[in-house]
């Protein structure tokens, strides 16, 4: 039993467990699953910006900040207690793809090329993570939600705008992953 938990998870474990976030939050306190609104709350709380978008009582959204604080701790536990930080169970095609990009064989969840910042490897991580992070934050707030709020919660509610957003997420992702990253990974 324990080995099934600490070993790699098949999709039919990961997906349904992720989907349970919807009932957990609705039953816990009538909350809709969503993560990217925390970006707004943190900005409102820390920077106290003058823009109208940030003038609201962020303290009422404390539940959302508690959720993302827990998510950080969950990341710690996944590695310490559940043996999570191993190379992902990628397909043969994916291995070939990353080799064709000149990347080293995966030995952990994340590629050293993007995540191991050092004196001889800083430009690529900066471009991928800073630019990527900015677009994620800007786009999620412009779209009114992210993968959790639109692609899981909104679709479960059969909300039309969430289906549009989820498809747009994929369109943007396909474009950059196929057209931009092959050139950018060589930085």
């Amino acid at each position: 039993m324990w080995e099934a938990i600490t070993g790699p998870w098949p999709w039919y474990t990961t997906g349904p467990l992720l989907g349970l976030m919807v009932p957990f939050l609705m039953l816990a306190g009538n909350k809709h699953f969503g993560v990217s609104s925390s970006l707004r709350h943190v900005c409102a709380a820390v920077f106290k910006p003058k823009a109208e978008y940030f003038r609201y009582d962020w303290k009422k959204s404390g539940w959302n900040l508690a959720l993302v604080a827990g998510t950080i701790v969950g990341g710690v536990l996944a590695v310490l207690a559940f043996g999570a930080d191993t190379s992902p169970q990628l397909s043969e095609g994916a291995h070939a793809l990353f080799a064709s990009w000149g990347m080293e064989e995966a030995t952990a969840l994340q590629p050293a090329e993007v995540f191991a910042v050092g004196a001889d490897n800083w430009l690529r991580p900066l471009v991928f993570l800073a630019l990527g992070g900015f677009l994620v934050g800007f786009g999620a707030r412009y779209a009114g939600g992210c993968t959790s709020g639109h692609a899981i919660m909104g679709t479960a509610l059969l909300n039309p705008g969430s289906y549009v957003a989820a498809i747009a997420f994929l369109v943007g992702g396909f474009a950059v992953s196929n057209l931009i990253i092959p050139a950018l990974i060589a930085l």
Partner: protein
Amino acid sequence: MALLKYFLIGIYFGIVLVKGEVVSWFRIQEMFHLQSAYMYLVIASAVVVGMIFVFAAKAFKLRSLDGQNLDFKGKPFNKVGNTAGGVIFGFGWALAGACPGPMYALLGAGYWAIAVGLVFAFLGALTYGYLKPRLPH
């Protein structure tokens, strides 16, 4: 103490994200290059579980543990916002290999470099907040 339950649900979320490899940059590129069905099946089955719950909760008129009638109202449909914002989000999702939930989880998993992504995600949200009155939605 009222927030403790959400903190615990967050811990669960973080474990599932990291253990399920949803946080992996490799997995995200693999998905966008159609090299594996894993991420699609994960997202689809998560949606199905959510849908079944919503359907059952409506049918049985479930209430939250603190006695509230459940809210089933989705977010407003903004044609330009959902589309343009969504595509921009997709650009970032592919580059960083992580959406907001995984960014928090990766911080816990010890991938410190993601702090850069997270700080810039805050800056992205901040920029949106200032530009919102001028953007079409």
